[in-house]
């Protein structure tokens, strides 16, 4: 049995900042990470971040990942297990992990779940054909391994991810045949949309994909125009030639472990799906389990990093490393997060967070798997 003050599940932006915050305040920290390196989805984000300077705006995700990873590697209070997957949480607070073909047990005082998200699927004929990828998969192949996902791509979804990945495909020399978007308007920032339009990529709003065409892998897609009520317009179908269909239709929080641990959950569409009920310190209904980043609700990496810091700091204060500065710092971080979520872009997130705090009438949707 391995004992530690704080166990962090997931070494992405939220998990990394949580670990650093806790370890800087002299807690012993373990991070377990499924992949063979830290960084989460930052390791393939070649675009520069938005926001204020304090939140690392202007820096590429891959650079942020490198900086955080180096600080963690040098930190004597942090132990990292890569290629390690959490298997289950037990009532006595033990977490089991598979690592290097071994089953290990870790008993922490506090757990921070920062497991991130998985990509949403879209229902259409032949959506399981090779060549239909999630947008994140395209980024992994292209930006991490330098391998082209195909020669001609149809991007489904004109939110920020769809637009940014389209631009990254163009940078890598891949032809983007079209971006299609079911709603009547482009969801992502117009600065990204303009960039790809200038490069000659058409963005078709009010369009959806009807089926993928191909035997062993994608050769084309049939798209269809939608009316304002999202119904298909008969006769508007057209075939677009492409060997790759890239789905950028949103993300869903990865909360299996939180559900299994018996944390109270609620389905909150504003946050991307089922998320844990938590307070403003990111503590769930289990006194020893915190959540941070996309596993608590889909947002940008900047918010995930701030949440990680908040959860890390609060967890430290509860394992006996109390320093009066912690609470001043905690307040500063919460104010910063509040500022990040202010303004019209943060409206949906603010609504979702309010429900997830349990202080509106999300109550009727709350559930738990505890007896």
């Amino acid at each position, binding site marked *: 049995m391995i004992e530690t003050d704080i166990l962090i599940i997931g070494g992405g932006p939220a998990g990394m900042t949580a670990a650093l915050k806790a370890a800087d305040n002299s807690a012993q920290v373990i991070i377990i990470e*499924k*992949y*063979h390196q830290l960084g989460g*989805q930052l390791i393939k984000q*070649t675009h520069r971040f938005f926001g204020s300077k304090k939140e690392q705006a202007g820096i*590429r995700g*891959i650079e942020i990942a490198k900086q955080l990873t180096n600080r963690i590697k040098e930190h004597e209070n942090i132990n990292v297990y890569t*290629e390690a997957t959490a298997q289950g949480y037990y009532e006595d607070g033990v977490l089991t992990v598979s690592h290097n073909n071994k089953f290990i047990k870790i008993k922490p005082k506090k757990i921070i779940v920062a497991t991130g998200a*998985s*990509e949403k699927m879209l229902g259409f004929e032949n959506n*399981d*054909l*090779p*060549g*239909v*990828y*999630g947008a*994140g*998969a395209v980024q*992994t*192949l*292209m*930006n*991490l*391994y*330098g*391998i*082209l*996902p195909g020669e001609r791509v149809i991007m489904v979804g004109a939110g920020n991810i769809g637009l940014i990945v389209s631009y990254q495909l163009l*940078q*890598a*020399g891949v032809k983007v045949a079209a971006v299609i978007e079911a709603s009547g308007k482009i969801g992502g920032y117009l600065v990204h949309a303009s960039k790809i339009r200038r490069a000659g990529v058409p963005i078709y709003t009010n369009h959806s994909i009807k089926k993928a065409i191909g035997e*062993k*892998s994608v050769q084309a897609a049939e798209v269809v125009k939608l009316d304002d009520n999202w119904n298909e317009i008969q006769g508007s179908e057209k075939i677009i030639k492409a060997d790759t269909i890239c789905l950028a239709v949103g993300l869903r929080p*990865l909360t299996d472990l939180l559900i299994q641990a018996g944390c109270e959950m609620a389905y909150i569409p504003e946050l991307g799906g089922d998320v844990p009920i938590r307070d403003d310190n990111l503590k769930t209904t289990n006194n020893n389990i915190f959540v941070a980043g996309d596993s608590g609700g889909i947002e940008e990496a900047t918010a995930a990093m701030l949440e990680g810091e908040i959860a890390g700091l609060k967890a430290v204060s509860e394992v006996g490393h109390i320093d009066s500065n912690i609470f001043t710092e905690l307040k500063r971080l919460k104010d910063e997060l509040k500022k990040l979520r202010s303004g019209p872009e943060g409206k949906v997130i603010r609504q979702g967070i309010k429900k997830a705090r349990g202080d509106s009438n999300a109550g009727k949707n709350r559930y738990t798997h505890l007896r």
Partner: protein
Amino acid sequence: MRIKEHPVLEFKRDKEITFTYNGKKIKAYEGETIAASLYASGIRVLKASSKYERPRGLFCAIGNCSSCHMVVDGVPNVKTCITKVEQGMIVQEEVGKGDIID
């Protein structure tokens, strides 16, 4: 196909190695995942779905979705999108649910 030039990124490829896919020799670089090496060689079909045996390839590429399960050195259901390729590995397309005992 591998990217040779990129405006933002530089790809430092480690030592060249080989492995087999359904008996065919495939070139790879140390540090890549099995699925990445296969895709670089133009191979997109990794397994057949367990019920209808439909071709399946990469979907999430980060170990979440199970669409890339293959038989690696005799072990079925290996997530090839997060498993690093090694010299001499025997990789096979997976059909069905993957038997551990022959």
